[in-house]
Structure formats: structure tokens, C-alpha cells
């Protein structure tokens, strides 16, 4: 063929790529500097003295580790120096147009946390349980992680799932009622799944079929479900709380051997079923999205629906499918409130967890594994206040209630690099 030699001739310039430069922003360095400053101010303005007792094992544990007692003020100041050093390194790197590596941020966070705990637990006669801190974090992250997975699935298909909050709350309510009636936590879980999917169906109807702005539908659904569950709660659940609102819960199921590993054992392997399911769900969602036909089509529809349409993929059906699965997964997170955490439903008991899950989606750059870790981080922040109130920390509990949101804000604003949402996210697909 005559074109052959021309093809080879032109190959060189065709395959050559454009020059790129690494863009860095001062955002990360700025956030680190701000936190360092606030932390130092805290140490100076409210100095604590005494020792902090870090507890690494529980009395029931097979292996016993003695309590670590450290002088609080020196430890807090050592951490402050580490924070300052990392901030300085980040600033220098940014000035040289280089990115701050993730491990530096991890070191920074660990130091900030240690310092803060040392300060908060100073002088308290009670032990600061590391297992309680981490195990509680895993527990508290359940709604965030499931919610974030639901958010990721929806948005990868091009439907912004703002309604996570509604899915969590609706599922929590349904799980409470069903678990109370049937005396079965598993039945409650199944009902939660359906409730989440039902909220999704409404979202899909408006967002996919009627092309209504997805953010608006999502927000309206969130408000609607708060109203609906509160109404049903006061009219139906409160009068017959015995039969309808006293749930059978999942109890912790220790996994033999694994649960005896020091620290990690009780944190990861002495948990209720719903948590183990979460450990499986995260890689499963990753696999489904990235390695299966279902996931390929789902992502195609979220990136370039018209291209998917031109190869015979039914965009509307694929999106409905994704949104329903997303709702069901988020529903599992909702079940946490009434089948793990408490044995009854309470008005608006999710209290904005759905929005934090949404932040985890973005913080996790629309990747299920990263989003799950983001959820875990937010879970940790939520749990911190519980642990500190147990230690009898001087920090007012109202203040600590803000922590998860502040962490979310700092994380999403300061530490998320340039990330790209699915190209067709939020855009209804109109044929022709």
C-alpha cells in the first residue's frame, strides 16, 4: 500500500507529546501554616501540665501492653516543632514548584493528632484508649464510607447524588421499624437497602427522566426525608415505641485469632457484621467499577453519554441502574444508626452525615478506595469528641462537635489536589 511509507514517516511527530509543567498551589502550605499557628496559639493560651496516659490494650486482650505515660507539655511542644518543620518544608517545595508529597501530610497529621491528644488528656487520671480512638473511628466512619460509596457510584454514572443524606436517614428509619417488628437486624438491613434505593428512584425519576437540576432534586429530597421521617416518628413511632422503635441490633462478632492481634485486632476484628461488610464493599465497588462490563458502561455514561449511546448503550437505563445501586449502598450506611449505634430511631439522627459523605467523594477524587479512606478520616474526627469526653478533657463538647466539619473543610479545601470529576457529572442526557 502506498500510504505505508507515509505512515511511518509521520509517526514521529504524531506520537511526540506536548510539554507539561507541574502546577503547584500554595493551598496546602497555607492550610498547614494555619493549623500550625492555631495549634501553637492553643498551647500558649491554654497551657496544660501533667502527664497523659496512653492505653494501648484492653483488659480482655490476650496480649497486655502496659500503659504509656508521657509528660504532656514537652510532648505537645515537640509535636509543634514537627508541625512547623513540615510546614516549612512544604513552603520550600511549593516555592520550587514541587508538590508536597502525601507522606509529609500524613506525618503532619499524625504529629498534630498526637500533640492535640497529649494536650487534651494532660493531667487526667483516666487512660486515653488508643483502641477506643481507632475502633470508634472505624465504627463512626460506617455511614460516611457507605454514603461515599453511594456517592461515587452515582456520580461516576453522571448523576450527582446529593441525596445521600436522605438515603441515610430514610434507611435508618426503615431499618428501625423493620428490625423492631421482625426482631431481626438482618431484616432491618435489607429494608435499609430498599429504602435507600427508593430515595434513589425518586432522584432518578426527576434527574434522569425529567432532566431536573440534580443538585436541586437532591437537596429537596434531603429536606423532604427529614420532614417525612420526623412526622412519622412523632405520629407513629413515639406512641408505639415498644413495638415499632426498639430495634434488634448487630452485636460485635470477634473474628478468632485476628481479633487477638494487639491494637489492630480489637480495632478491625471485634466489630459488628455491618463493618465487615464494609471492608468487603470497598474493594468490591472498586472492582465492579473498574474491572467489569457493568462498571465500564457506567463510567462511559458518566464521562461521555453520547459516545455510550452511539455504541448502543442505553444511557437512561444504565444511569437508573447506577443510581439505584448507589442508593442501596448508601442505605446500608443508614442502617448503622438504628441497627448498630442505637436501638431506636431519633429525629434527624444522621445530622448531616450525608453531606460529609459527599465531601468524602470529592476528597477521594471519585475513587471508591480513596473516598472510603476519606470517610474513615471523617469518622475519626467524629469519634474524637467521644474519646475526649471520656478522658474528661477540658475542651467544651460543643466545640468538639465542630471538629468533623472543620476537618472536612480543611481537607477538601486545602489538601485535595487538582481533581477532575466525571465529565458528564450533573448533566442530564437529552437525546438528539
Amino acid at each position, binding site marked *: 500500500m502506498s500510504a505505508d511509507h507515509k505512515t511511518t514517516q509521520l509517526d514521529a511527530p504524531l506520537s511526540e507529546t506536548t*510539554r*507539561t509543567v507541574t502546577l503547584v498551589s500554595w493551598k496546602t502550605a497555607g492550610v498547614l501554616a494555619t493549623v500550625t499557628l492555631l495549634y501553637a496559639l492553643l498551647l500558649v493560651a491554654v497551657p496544660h501540665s501533667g502527664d497523659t496516659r496512653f492505653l494501648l490494650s484492653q483488659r480482655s486482650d490476650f496480649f497486655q501492653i502496659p500503659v504509656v505515660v508521657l509528660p504532656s507539655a514537652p510532648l505537645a511542644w515537640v509535636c509543634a516543632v514537627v508541625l512547623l518543620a513540615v510546614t516549612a518544608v512544604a513552603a520550600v517545595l511549593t516555592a520550587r514548584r514541587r508538590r508536597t508529597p502525601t507522606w509529609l501530610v500524613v506525618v503532619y497529621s499524625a504529629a498534630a493528632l498526637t500533640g492535640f491528644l497529649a494536650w487534651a488528656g494532660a493531667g487526667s487520671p483516666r487512660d486515653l484508649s488508643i483502641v477506643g480512638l481507632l475502633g470508634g473511628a472505624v465504627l463512626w466512619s460506617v455511614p460516611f464510607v457507605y454514603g461515599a460509596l453511594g456517592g461515587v457510584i452515582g456520580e461516576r454514572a453522571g448523576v450527582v447524588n446529593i441525596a445521600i443524606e436522605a438515603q441515610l436517614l430514610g434507611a435508618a428509619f426503615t431499618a428501625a421499624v423493620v428490625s423492631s417488628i421482625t426482631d431481626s437486624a438482618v431484616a432491618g438491613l435489607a429494608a435499609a437497602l430498599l429504602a435507600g434505593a427508593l430515595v434513589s428512584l425518586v432522584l432518578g425519576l426527576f434527574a434522569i427522566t425529567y432532566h431536573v437540576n440534580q443538585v436541586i432534586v437532591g437537596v429537596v429530597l434531603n429536606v423532604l426525608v427529614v420532614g417525612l421521617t420526623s412526622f412519622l416518628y412523632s405520629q407513629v413511632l413515639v406512641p408505639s415505641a415498644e413495638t415499632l422503635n426498639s430495634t434488634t441490633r448487630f452485636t460485635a462478632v470477634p473474628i478468632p485469632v485476628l481479633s487477638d492481634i494487639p491494637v489492630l485486632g480489637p480495632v478491625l476484628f471485634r466489630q459488628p457484621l455491618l463493618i465487615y461488610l464494609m471492608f468487603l464493599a470497598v474493594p468490591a465497588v472498586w472492582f465492579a467499577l473498574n474491572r*467489569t462490563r457493568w462498571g465500564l*458502561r457506567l463510567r*462511559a455514561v458518566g*464521562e461521555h453519554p453520547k459516545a455510550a449511546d452511539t*455504541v448502543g448503550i442505553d444511557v437512561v437505563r444504565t444511569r437508573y441502574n447506577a443510581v439505584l445501586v448507589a442508593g442501596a449502598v448508601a442505605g446500608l450506611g443508614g442502617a448503622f444508626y438504628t441497627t448498630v449505634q442505637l436501638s431506636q430511631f431519633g429525629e434527624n439522627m444522621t445530622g448531616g452525615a450525608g453531606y460529609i459523605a459527599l465531601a468524602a467523594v470529592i476528597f477521594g477524587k471519585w475513587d471508591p478506595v480513596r473516598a472510603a479512606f476519606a470517610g474513615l478520616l471523617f469518622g475519626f474526627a467524629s469519634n474524637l469528641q467521644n474519646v475526649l469526653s471520656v478522658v474528661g478533657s477540658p475542651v467544651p463538647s460543643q466545640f468538639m462537635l465542630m471538629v468533623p466539619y472543620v476537618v472536612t473543610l480543611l481537607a477538601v479545601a486545602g489538601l485535595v489536589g487538582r481533581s477532575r470529576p466525571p465529565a458528564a457529572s450533573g448533566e442530564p442526557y437529552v437525546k438528539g
Partner: protein
Amino acid sequence: MRLELRGITKRFGALVANDHIDLVVEPGEIHCLLGENGAGKSTLMNVLYGLYEAEEGDILLDDEVQRFAGPGDAMAAGIGMVHQHFMLVPVFTVAENVMLGHEQTRGGGRLDLDAARAQVREISARFGFHVDPDAVVEDLPVGVQQRVEIIKALSRNADVLVFDEPTAVLTPQETDELMAIMRQLRDEGAAIVFITHKLREVREVADRITVIRHGKVVGEASPTASDAELASLMVGRAVELTVHKDAPTLRDNGLRVTDLVVTDEAGTVVVDGVSFEVSGGEVLAVAGVQGNGQTELTEALIGLEGDVTGSITLDGKELVGRSVRRILDEGVGFVPEDRTHDGLVGEFTIAENLMLDRSDGPPFVRRGALQLAFRDRFAREKIAEFDVRAQGIATPVGRLSGGNQQKVVVAREMSRDLRLFVAAQPTRGVDVGSIEFIHKRIIATRDAGVPVVVVSTELDEAVALADRIMVMYRGKVVGIVPADTPRDVLGLMMAGISPEDAKGEVTA
């Protein structure tokens, strides 16, 4: 497979995009659909492909009437399409794009990527492509992306292949290669529909030519017909295909760009160390395949790019770092590449669009109030001067045809005291009559002593308007050459080959 379209009619509201179109394409034939932008070619092909549902008419394959509920059905029936705007998922790999919609799976619902890779390699080898199945599509040059589209169609054993304006994004040499591929496909027995509005290409490969105008078939032409014959059939009247201009009278003033570097949000250097000068009274045409930094260059000139280093001086004044407003105040006129998106507000009237950049003071605004009488008088003058065909000045701009919309943009940008005029793709999607008019105005601006920069991906337009031609490739200037440089040389330069090497290669 023999394709026949019978009496296809497709309406968009009141607009009849296809009006009882009949078309027969035999196997082993390249059938050219020739027509101006907006003639209804893409619409017809989208009907064929099941993307649009026709109001009337039938699609027949081997004399059997087909019912396509969607593209899936059309594909299953053996129709493949290389779309004008590529239907590829940018973040997917080549293999993923090729397999999408007909994926093979292994146990556990896992995608069988190996099978897809093998298929990409096999088809690539058949046609002498060099396509890496694991490359991410958005990282590939457009020419290669187009081959991915072809592989996609062939991987489904298409017997009828539609190419919708495939050459719009290619260099002349890539175009030649594509034509060779189309001939090979034809020789293998495929029925090929080739859509274009470039006469040169039609004559080169077409076995038969059908001309469409305003949604109707206006006739068949022979591949041996002359350019003038084809053009008049396409446009409906005799057209002037060349631009008349005298030798330039250069002035001292002008634009000087030095070491301009523009970086986009993703960190890609889209304009990479560009330097050039344009004197008053001269047209510099910037040629190159779409997406080689021309758009960003023009946007940097007007202050629309964020991350810019280097220097842009106009009559000695530095423009880099100034706001768009202050650059406009220096007397810069700018026709953006995408008029519907960046040049006009579709819902606003002609009169409102004509004063869009004048809202900050007299004579259009006094003491914060719009001067409606003045605005309307101004608009009436301009639509007369620039031959905008519309019901009146109160017509929303979105209702005008592409050519008239563009004349509104040009009118607005030319009605200030200009010291620099920048036009990106000034005649894209514009009818031939309006092209003539806009070209005349651009030359008139040049003759008034203004430096003019015209970006065009249509080599013919660049050559026709230019006093000098600057070719860009991958954000860099390949060379600045006289307007009478041979097309072959320009074509090679558009592929990144230096002017010296290109000349050597052409004469060799």
C-alpha cells in the same frame, strides 16, 4: 451491503433539516455527500445511525427496510460511523473504547481486556496503523483518535461506513493517509459515505457525488467536475473563490509578541515560547491543525488566559498582566473561535449584542442608564453596513444563521477605533456569501493600517488572507513563511516539520 435512503425527512421544530432525501450507496463505492455547513449532512447520517428518528422515509439495507430504535440496532445491522465530533470516552484506553458496548467477559463478569487488545492490534496491523491499545485516548493526537474511531467501527464488522467530515481535524498529509485507508476499505467491499465541504478531497476519492443544499438533494455531480461547478451547485450561485487584495503597505506600529508561554489548568504548556511581529497594514495568518495552541494564543492576546509569561506589546505598550477591559481599551478587536459560546449572548437582541462591550460609559450609558435611542440607531447603522440579514434589530441573535451571527460579532468588534484586530476561525460554519463579505472586511481593516492576526485551520483561508503565514504545532511556532509557500510545504509544517526540511521533502 447496499444502502438506500428513501425520502428521508427530518425536522427540528420549524426547520426542515432533511427534506425527502434519496440516496443510494453501492458496496465497493465511495459516495461523497457534499454540502455547505448546515446543509443537513450530519442530520441525515444521524438518522441513518439511529440517533435521530426521521419523520418520514425508509432506510434499506440490501433492499430490506430497517427499523432502528437506536444506534445499537444500526450497528448490529452493519453500519459504522466515524463521527464529526469523536465519540470516544477521553479517559478510557483505546482498548476500552473499542470494546465498549460489545464487551467480552471472563469468569466473574470480568472484562476481557486481552481480547480487546488483540482486536485493536489485529485491525491496526491490517491497515498499517500504529495504535497502542493501552494508550489513554485523550493523550493521543486527533489523527490517531480518528483511527481509533475507525478501529471501533471495523471491530463490529461494519459493511457500511460513514465518515462525517473526517478531514476537518487533519493535516493535509494525514488527510492523504485517510483517503488511502478509505480506498482500501472500498476495495474490500465496504459501502462508504464520505461527507465533506472541501472540493479538493471530493474530486480525489469520490466514485459518486451527491450535493445537498438546504436539506434537499440538488443533484449528482461527476468526480471530474471543476471546482467552480461543484461550488456553484453547493451554494446555488456562482461564487468568488479567491480573495482580491493589493500588496500590503506596512506601517511602523504593530504587535510584537516575545517568548509567550501559556500554561493551562492541567499544567500543559499550550503555547510554548512563541515570538512574532505583525506590522500595521499586514495580515499574519496562524495556520495549524486544530488544538495546537492557536486558540490559547489568541486568548492570551486579549487577556483571557490566566497563566501567561513573556511579553505582548502593542504600539510599544505592554499588554501582559492587563485586564481584558484595559486591553480592549487599547483598541483590540477580537472575534472568538466559538461565536455562540464566547462571542454572543444568544437570548439578547442584535442591538444588545452590538453594545455588549460598551456598557461602561457614554455614549451607550449615561448616569447608569442605557441610552436606548442611541443603541438602536447604532444597531440599525451596523446591520446595514455589515449586511446582517435579520427581521430587525430586536431579533434575538440566537435565531440568526451562522453567517449572520458572525457578521454581528465582526460588526461589533470592528466598530471601535482599532489598533489591532484578532480573528479566530472567522468563517467557520459560515455560508459562502458571508465568507466573501467577512474576508473583504478583514482586508479593508488591514488596508486601513491595522495589524491583523487571523487564526484558521482551513489552509485555503489562511493562504487567501495572509501576507505571511505562521504555522503552529504543539504550541510552538514551526515557522513563519510567505503566503505563496506551496501547500505541500505548509501541510508538512502543520505536522511539525521545519520549513527547510519540508521544502527539501517536497522537492525530493
